[in-house]
């Protein structure tokens, strides 16, 4: 089935926005409607944004009115660092139930559902296999709240798939995500001057770059992939290797016994170690990503490259300050630019000249080396802003540490 009319939940997340941008380029896609509580952070050309979260009846009305054939649900909270446990539970369990309810029932136009989940579904335990495949279950019941939510949400999706055989349901379980736009427990720990570890443990970790998350979601929209698929970059790193790539010392602050207690002390001190990150720091986790690869998806980044990208971002942030959003969505302005007959030159996002220095710098890490060199030459001839030139030079001169 080819998706023509698509509804995206979680449009304001990074991958939600990136996915919308990718789908906009496809002339085969007639309509893209994004819903979220907050406005999107990326520039969108023809995606329509509706400010609604996961209210069942409202989404249902949108689905029916717009004859949505594909729903991409990227709203799941997979990290307890971003919100309170109660809100996370509301969003993950109640919200999922609501979205599913809006996709089913008599005469519903939805034929495909893509659900973004997390490898936290598998947990992180002592007797785990080294690589989880999609058919494996966690060896013990979930301990942390967020993992329990994820298991419950996936259960609801599975039940939906069983009841609605005519709907293609894809569940994507992603490894730990890394990327400039993301705030996760792990990226918080990796951003500290020294990376905390549990004494005597050097866990295996797997990462996926945020661009690959958007890529996997798009892949699932474009192809019919019923079932569960793991998403994770090639390669599994050990924590000490990650510290080496980030050029930071590893600090075994947490004792192997009484780890939870020590973590709560650290939490008081501002080092946010989430309960699910403790499991990762002790036992680690990796997934077998081959099932998705066999359907034709090619990852842009390996786990190692995702960490190197994070390192580049950290270096840049040290120069220009904290991450600045390259673009802020002003709904009324966008509406004007898109629709008003008075506008003669519709905005073109591919030119860099109309960007401010900070916005441009934030974009730099996503460029290929050749494009970077071209941009450097262009910048020298025209504006020659010293901050931009310095940022480009630091990226060009950067060779990843062994």
């Amino acid at each position, binding site marked *: 089935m080819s998706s023509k009319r698509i509804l995206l939940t979680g449009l304001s997340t990074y991958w939600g926005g990136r996915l919308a941008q990718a789908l906009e380029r496809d002339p085969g896609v007639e309509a893209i409607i994004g819903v979220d509580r907050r406005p999107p952070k990326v520039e969108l050309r023809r995606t329509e944004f509706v400010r609604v979260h996961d209210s069942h009846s409202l989404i249902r009305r949108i689905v029916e009115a717009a004859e949505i054939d594909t729903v991409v649900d990227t709203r799941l909270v997979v990290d307890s660092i971003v919100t309170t446990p109660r809100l996370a539970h509301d969003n993950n369990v109640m919200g999922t139930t609501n979205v599913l309810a809006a996709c089913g029932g008599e005469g519903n136009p939805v034929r495909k559902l893509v659900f973004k989940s997390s490898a936290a579904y598998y947990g992180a335990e*002592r*007797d*785990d*296999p*080294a*690589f989880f*495949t999609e058919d*494996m279950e966690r060896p013990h019941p979930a301990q942390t709240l967020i993992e329990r939510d994820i298991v419950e949400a996936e259960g609801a999706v599975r039940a939906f798939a069983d009841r609605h055989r005519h709907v293609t349901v894809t569940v994507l379980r992603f490894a730990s995500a890394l990327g400039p736009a993301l705030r996760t427990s792990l990226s918080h720990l990796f951003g500290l001057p020294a990376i905390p570890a*549990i*004494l*005597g*443990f*050097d866990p*295996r970790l797997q990462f996926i770059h945020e661009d690959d998350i958007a890529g996997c979601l798009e892949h699932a929209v474009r192809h019919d*992939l019923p079932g569960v698929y793991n998403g994770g970059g*090639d*390669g*599994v*790193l*050990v924590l000490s*290797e990650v510290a080496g790539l980030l050029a930071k010392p590893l600090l075994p602050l947490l004792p*192997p016994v009484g780890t939870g207690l020590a973590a709560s002390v650290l939490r008081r001190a501002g080092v946010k170690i989430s309960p699910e990150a403790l499991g990762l720091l002790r*036992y680690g986790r*990796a997934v*077998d*990503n*081959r*099932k998705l*690869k*066999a*359907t034709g998806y090619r990852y842009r980044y*390996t786990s*190692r490259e995702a960490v190197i990208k994070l390192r580049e971002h950290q270096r840049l942030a040290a120069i220009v300050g904290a991450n600045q959003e390259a673009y802020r969505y002003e709904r009324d302005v966008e509406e004007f630019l898109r629709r008003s007959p008075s506008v003669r030159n519709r905005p073109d996002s591919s030119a860099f000249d109309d960007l401010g220095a900070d916005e441009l710098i934030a974009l730099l890490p996503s460029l290929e080396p050749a494009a970077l060199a071209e941009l450097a030459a262009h910048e020298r001839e025209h504006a020659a802003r010293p901050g931009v030139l310095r940022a480009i030079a630091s990226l060009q001169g950067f060779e*990843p540490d*062994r």
Partner: protein
Amino acid sequence: MTPGTDLRPYLPGVEPERQITDWGRSERVEGLFDRTLVEFFYRLWFRCEVQGIENVPAEGGALLVSNHSGALPPDAPMIAKAIKEEHPHPRPVHLTMEHFFKGFPGFSMLLPKVGGVPAHPANVHRLLYDERQLVLVFPEGRKGTEKLYKDRYRLRRFGRGGFVEAAMRAGVPIVPIAVVGAEESAPIFAHVRPLQRLTGLLYFPITPTFPHFGLLGMLGYLPAKFIIRFLRPVRTDAMGDEPWEDKGLVQTVAQDVRATIQDELIEMLGERRSVWFG
């Protein structure tokens, strides 16, 4: 994608900049141990003698099955070293270890670096079938390493034959190995249960050097002469369709392998004139 698609072509490629594999094995740490401690024990202390190395296949997966002994078993690194040193195509050996070690601080950090892999059936299958590697298992498990000196060279039960099932599923041969010498190098005279509970270890043995010389006493092996004999491989790829479903066959093969090793051990002990000089 149809179910049963061969996923082997989709294994991640090797990143040449990395010195650590996806299993957490570190070239650097392994090399360091190999050049120092393992080299010393292999050449000088145990003076390992290797027989039948040609029974280890030069390529493809194979499951190596050996008898097991010693509080901190010296047999595993010696077998791995033997293949590295004596085989015309030296290959890395993956040593299966109990999940316990993944949960114990220190061991959890070190053992994967030198080739240890938790003994999960999925791990063994991936190594044997997908990555076509050599995997060393000790079906006796801790029943072998905790047995007392008076029970030496008497093989314990071979579990439920899980190792045979693993080899059958992967369609790889089983290479039985008989090791003589390890039992005398690290004899256990008694176990102290209360101390075992206190330390959280698998067991707390009394050996000639442990616990009175501390943790390093675990390495205080006696200089017994090692003889490592690789036996004729048992093929598992011509046993019919899905032979692992036939539990009787699995048990029979497991018993056969156990009997082969036990008989060989008795023969080797009969030929041996001295514990220390072979």
